[in-house]
């Protein structure tokens, strides 16, 4: 059979999504040998933007049927690369929460570029104060953006990182000629086996230095819901999927509360508002929650959700 051409890029990213692709596991070798033809993927393939000897003037990426992009858009070069990917790829996949919602790096949207550089290049206790660098480096944008704020995205796979089940699912579905692969629009709680009593425990809101109550010898299904234990679990307002197609939510498996790494449940959701309702429903006073933006928009600061404090 003919192989499907794939181009992959990472922008304001950490490489966790690319490691997640590797964690598809043994199937990956067969896919690489028989089904997928990577024409551009900087993490494993030496294809260059300006020709292989770096003499061309225009940035160029080869044409591909499928384009995969991880990371948000933070500087002029990310933007240029993303526009080129959109131009050259028939189907564009946003891989990971940075690409779909800005991810952790979009927390920078709360601060100005001057604040950031003032500390990094002048005030840091180990740094010899210096002028800010400007030569031969792309200027930063005013914010960190999700991909769909810049180009049309055909398929979104959020997650920090996305579970290999969804990555494999999307690839196999595309190989099958289907272009409408979609993760279910449900919350982390829908995949969580813990016991909910739909009432508040006697406790107050607890920060992460408190331990959850559980018996390590017993399964998750014997543990009380962490939100009901007062642990500010973000399950109710977070997109399901971290445990893959079948598994329990990953943070809950480690007996710690969810922090929202799959982003909002659906496009346009308002986790900052919705969570207040979830807290109130189990009897907590949302006003007592510290650092609301840092918890509730930690992974979803793009799309104008996080703004400069100013």
């Amino acid at each position, binding site marked *: 059979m003919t192989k499907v051409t794939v181009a992959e890029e990472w922008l304001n990213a950490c490489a966790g999504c690319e490691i997640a692709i590797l964690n598809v596991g043994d199937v990956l070798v067969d896919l690489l040998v028989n089904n997928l033809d990577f024409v551009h993927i900087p993490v494993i393939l030496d294809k260059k933007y300006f020709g292989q000897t770096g003499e061309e003037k225009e940035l160029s990426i080869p044409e591909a049927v499928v384009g995969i992009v991880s990371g948000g858009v933070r500087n002029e070069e990310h933007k240029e690369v993303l526009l080129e990917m959109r131009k050259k790829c028939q189907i564009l996949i946003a891989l990971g929460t940075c690409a779909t919602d800005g991810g952790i790096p979009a927390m920078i949207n709360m601060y100005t570029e001057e604040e950031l550089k003032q500390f990094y290049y002048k005030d840091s206790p180990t740094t010899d104060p210096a002028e800010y660098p400007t030569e031969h480096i792309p200027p930063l944008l005013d914010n960190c953006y999700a991909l769909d704020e810049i180009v049309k995205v055909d398929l979104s796979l959020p997650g920090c990182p996305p579970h290999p089940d969804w990555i494999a699912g999307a690839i196999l579905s595309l190989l099958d000629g289907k272009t409408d692969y979609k993760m279910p629009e449900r919350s982390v709680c829908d995949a969580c086996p813990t016991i909910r009593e739909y009432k508040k425990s006697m406790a107050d809101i607890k920060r992460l230095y408190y331990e959850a109550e559980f018996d390590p010898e017993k399964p998750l299904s014997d543990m009380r819901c962490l939100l009901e234990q007062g642990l500010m679990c973000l399950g109710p307002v977070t997109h399901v999927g971290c445990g893959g197609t079948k598994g329990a939510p*990953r943070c809950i498996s480690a007996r710690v509360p969810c922090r929202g790494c799959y982003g909002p449940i659906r496009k346009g959701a308002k986790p900052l508002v919705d969570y207040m309702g979830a807290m109130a429903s189990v009897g907590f006073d949302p006003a007592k929650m510290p650092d609301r933006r840092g918890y509730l928009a930690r992974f979803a600061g793009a799309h104008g959700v996080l703004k400069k404090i100013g």
Partner: protein
Amino acid sequence: MGKTLNIAPITRIEGHASVAIHLDDTGNVSDAKMHVLSLRGFEQFVIGRPVEEVPRIVTRICGICPWQHHLASNKAADECLGVELPPTGRKLRELCQMMAYIPDKILHFYFLAAPDFVLGPDADYSVRNVVGIIGANPELAKKVVHMRYKAQMMLEKFSGKVIHPIAGVVGGFSKPLLEEERKEILAGIQELKDFSIFTIKFAREEVFPKYLDAVKILGVFPSGYLGTVRPSDGALELYDGELRLMDQNGNYDQFKYSEYMDYIGEHTEPWSYLKFPYAKKWGQLKLDENDPVGVYRANTLARINVCDKMATPLAQEELDIFRKAFGRPTHLTLLYHWARLIELVQCCERAEELLNDPEITGREYRAKNIEPRAGEGVGCVEAARGTLIHHYKTDDNGMVTMANLIVGTTHNNAPMNLSVKQAAKALIKDGKYDQGILNRVEMAIRAYDP
């Protein structure tokens, strides 16, 4: 008229950088620089966050070494809040670090570095990659994919999440290790240890000897080295110890994490977002590959150079072979790849030791009664790319007021630039260059990667 070769992106590394090689009228290299192209701003956006949350944020600095950032950050947060860890909590963290290192080193050697050595630096880019490796040796490639996957999944099963971990918490660990889990992981680690020993033998007998000539010249320059050692005997430490900063002749200072500011300064150049750390006591940083001042390197080769011995027996045997061939300190940049495999053996052996320690399955895995407070903490661990320094201050409510981070890649910014310059000048003469030559310049950078 001169011209510039713009090698972008640097490939088969984790991260974003480009190299600009400037040629003069005669086609010789007048200058070469590695530009780091973005600034994400972690030091800024952890300000105002509760300090116990920071270990769950800074993981995203690096998707390849998230465990190391997670643990360095947890250590700094523990110190800010004045928490003493129970031994089981400390050992579970160290076990996770060892387990995280194993797939990482396998990944780097076989998937990122090996294409240059197994397929050759001049092979076309379309085959000089992991798919080419699969074609050249399908049985071994399948085994590599399987072993790496197994190592990742073991850690995931125990800790909940392997990429961007969550199980390290202020005060220790979020859950205990059960006896049946211990047995299962131990069996897996023993298999990985066998594979690691196979790998280092394979590398030193069949892969490296063919390229010893390149090893002796590519990207080579004299420098200092930074790594962590066990205070009692100077053995190579990855999880906890003291920092040792060695000069190019082998003399060193050894100091506690909290003293890092006395020894390390950071300089800025106008052409890279990334700063250039340097050894303060050696004078103002000078980026000259023939006479560098203040330049030190981190990562595997640095740790192997600064340590007096390895912490485990089979790794020690490998260090003996290595030192006999290359001495101490050795400045040969491509030996990072060899040093990495010696550490791989130690990681497997150390994981095995920890799993055989009765305390590892203890039930006091997390300190109790932690309260927010104003404080300060410096947490360090050794990551694949080098020493991680996380330094935080908190207010009375345990919220972060200052965060200073010096991480693996940053330490190596100056040396990577010098290696690039050295390699470009040595390889490009009279306007003659091709893909293979330019790839060799990139190989000088790849050596420093995870």
